């Protein structure tokens, strides 16, 4: 039989709880809403861009409108969730790179998969770079999209450039998003963390040891 810690005891001593809080409700909803909007953008883009899909569905004016509004709305969930202290704290963690992040990146570059050479706090260095790049790329897509939408705002050469950047960045973003989703598919506990807000202690110990250690020592 599994020996579960007594709930009364773990309430008093959270370091013994089997599950560790990872994401607040505001963060999870911001992630969910962003994912849905991004999904709408990607799917409508595919129907506008890929000839086989365009022939399948047509309705170009409608698809364009849905794509535009989903794109405009894309930053809204995260901006709204900036009111949450948990999200702001996580943004700080995502921003700052320590010596362990350099070790993690070096190991990633050398395809060194040993846990010991990939130290990570709440977010590993790969997740940090993904977050920063995805945020920047989303805003570039939004800016270039607006230039293509409101054609009178900018001169033609800018618009042609915006189309070029929007097309190629869309392709890049698609590949990177596929990587993001692929890694989540390969890690059910990470997905559970984003779905329920908490993760198994063993998982945190394995994937984010510096984070767990700090949680213990700061109590």
């Amino acid at each position: 039989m599994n020996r579960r810690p007594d709930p009364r005891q773990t309430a008093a001593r959270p370091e013994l709880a089997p599950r560790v809080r990872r994401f607040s409700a505001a963060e999870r909803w911001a992630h969910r809403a962003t994912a849905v909007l991004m999904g709408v953008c990607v799917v409508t883009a595919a129907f506008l861009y890929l000839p086989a899909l365009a022939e399948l569905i047509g309705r170009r004016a409608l698809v364009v409108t849905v794509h535009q509004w989903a794109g405009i709305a894309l930053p809204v969930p995260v901006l709204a969730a900036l009111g949450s202290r948990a999200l702001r704290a996580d943004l700080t963690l995502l921003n700052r790179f320590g010596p362990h992040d350099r070790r993690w990146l070096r190991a990633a570059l050398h395809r060194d998969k040993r846990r010991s050479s990939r130290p990570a706090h709440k977010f590993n260095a790969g997740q940090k770079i993904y977050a920063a790049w995805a945020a920047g790329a989303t805003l570039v897509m939004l800016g270039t999209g607006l230039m293509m939408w409101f054609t009178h705002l900018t001169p033609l050469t800018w618009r042609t450039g915006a189309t070029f950047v929007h097309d190629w960045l869309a392709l890049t973003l698609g590949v990177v998003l596929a990587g993001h989703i692929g890694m989540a598919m390969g890690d059910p506990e990470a997905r559970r963390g984003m779905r329920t807000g908490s993760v198994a202690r063993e998982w945190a110990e394995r994937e984010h040891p510096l984070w767990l250690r700090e949680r213990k020592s700061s109590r």
Partner: protein
Amino acid sequence: MNSESPQGRGAPVGRRVFLGTLGLGALGIVAAPALQRGTEAVLSGDPTGLTGLLPNGGGFRYYSVTSSVPHKDAKNYQLTVDGLVDRPASYTLADLRALPQTRMVRDVQCVTGWRVPGTPFEGVRLSHLLDAAGVRSTAGAVHFTCFDGAYTESLTLEQARRADVLVALRMQDKDIGHSHGGPVRLYVAPMYFYKSAKWLSGITVTQDVEPGFWEERGYDIDAWVGRSNGRDDEPTT
């Protein structure tokens, strides 16, 4: 956070990556003309056709404004000519094929930016059909309808009578297929390709220009390539 914490300090690399991405995006807009020439040069040498899926891979793109378009062929296709004319008419595909054919080779320029060089179109001059119908003196424009049930286009009578405006039956020296707007589409050589309405089914002579589908959504009615829609592409004629 205690003093041994590896977080809360350290370089703000995230911010640098974020701002760097924004900067690269802006740089990309400025450097696009040079980059585009580079990608086009690389992609044009591809024999597999896979690069057609990449941006600026060349070739036509399929645009339709409706969910589905009925298929028409020699058995059920009809083109009507009516409005301010003395002799309204209806043509089958065989009727149109029996009329004098004109072949032209020009570039196709879409208002969204893609261009297909040297594309042959072949068909009946629109002016021929208008003359056969006998346009009345009060007429000033021509309105086009399509059997997709939604798309419309318009030309002034003067534009419609140009020698480089065809009721096209063939494109790239093949009968026009369904996805390219077949069996019959309009071909307005000097204008952006949205004027070349696909799945043409009706020609109505009117007094004044009635804006077409995209024109009601902000596109220019007089869509000369290089002189409209805020674009400066090289003219196609």
